[in-house]
């Protein structure tokens, strides 16, 4: 049972806690074309770094300055850990028949904005972030905003029709250390 459900009738007012800044690293295997991601507090992971691991030849294709956190209820101290959350992706509407874009269109009129939660790959493909945690994340972002103007809805990444074609943007600090806007991001999948 999730920890938060053991606190009975508390309505939960979530706050961010255990904030750690670091990097989300994207690695690709140029042998099997697999993608994996992980969080590290290492100071400057080197882009292009290559190494072999069994049958895989991993190469770091992108580093994104990011952070991880947990959510804690300010009223009952319930704690939900989000160490499995890699980041939130903003849908760019690249695939008209993608479930995320369909949802986005559906909710746009209600001024509810969709963001896609990603777990770390490849584990998240087998074990996605459970829906109740995405609901908690949705509650957290809505509790701290003026919901009379607009709302946020967090959805799972398995709604994306084809990851290899997705051109969504992670809300990460990729190339943000440059003062010039990057000339379009490389697709990471």
């Amino acid at each position, binding site marked *: 049972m999730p920890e938060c459900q053991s606190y009975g009738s508390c309505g939960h007012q979530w706050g961010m806690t255990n904030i750690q800044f670091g990097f989300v690293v994207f690695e690709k295997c140029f042998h099997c074309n697999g993608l994996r991601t992980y969080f590290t507090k290492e100071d400057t992971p080197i882009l292009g770094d290559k190494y072999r691991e069994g049958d895989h030849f991993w190469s770091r294709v992108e580093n994104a300055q990011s952070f991880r956190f947990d959510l804690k209820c300010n009223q009952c101290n319930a704690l939900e850990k989000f160490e499995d959350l890699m980041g939130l992706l903003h849908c760019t509407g690249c695939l008209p028949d993608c479930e995320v874009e369909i949802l986005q269109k559906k909710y746009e009129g209600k001024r509810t904005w969709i963001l896609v939660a990603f777990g770390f790959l490849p584990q998240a493909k087998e074990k996605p972030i459970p829906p109740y945690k995405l609901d908690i994340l949705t509650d957290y972002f809505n509790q701290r905003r*003026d919901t009379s*103007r607009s709302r946020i809805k967090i959805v799972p990444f398995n709604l994306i029709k084809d990851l290899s074609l997705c051109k969504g943007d992670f*809300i990460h600090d990729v190339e*943000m250390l440059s003062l010039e806007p990057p000339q379009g991001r490389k697709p990471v999948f």
Partner: protein
Amino acid sequence: MTTKDLIEKIELKPLSKFEGREINGVFISDMLSDVMAKAKSGNLWLTVQTHKSIVPAANLVDVSAIIITSGKQVPPETIELANKYSIAILSTDLPIFELVGKLYGLGLGSK
């Protein structure tokens, strides 16, 4: 103070379409992660970053406006996305330090 009051008082240039709203403080950072972790709903966000990713970050946190300082040019795709989300993007030629001085003088620093 509202975003519309602020635009008049310190001659900010609105770049996107938005509805005026109350400002409840100021947050300064050029990192999205920092903004997502620490900025509060209703804050003004001061930055020199102009990449379109600033818009979903600002929307997620529900800032009252993004102020692009130091006369940085904002790409059209960033403004287009801001229009979609009704996120106020304002620009000024002032560097952040001078802008902060003016905002503090208007009483925003005490919130």
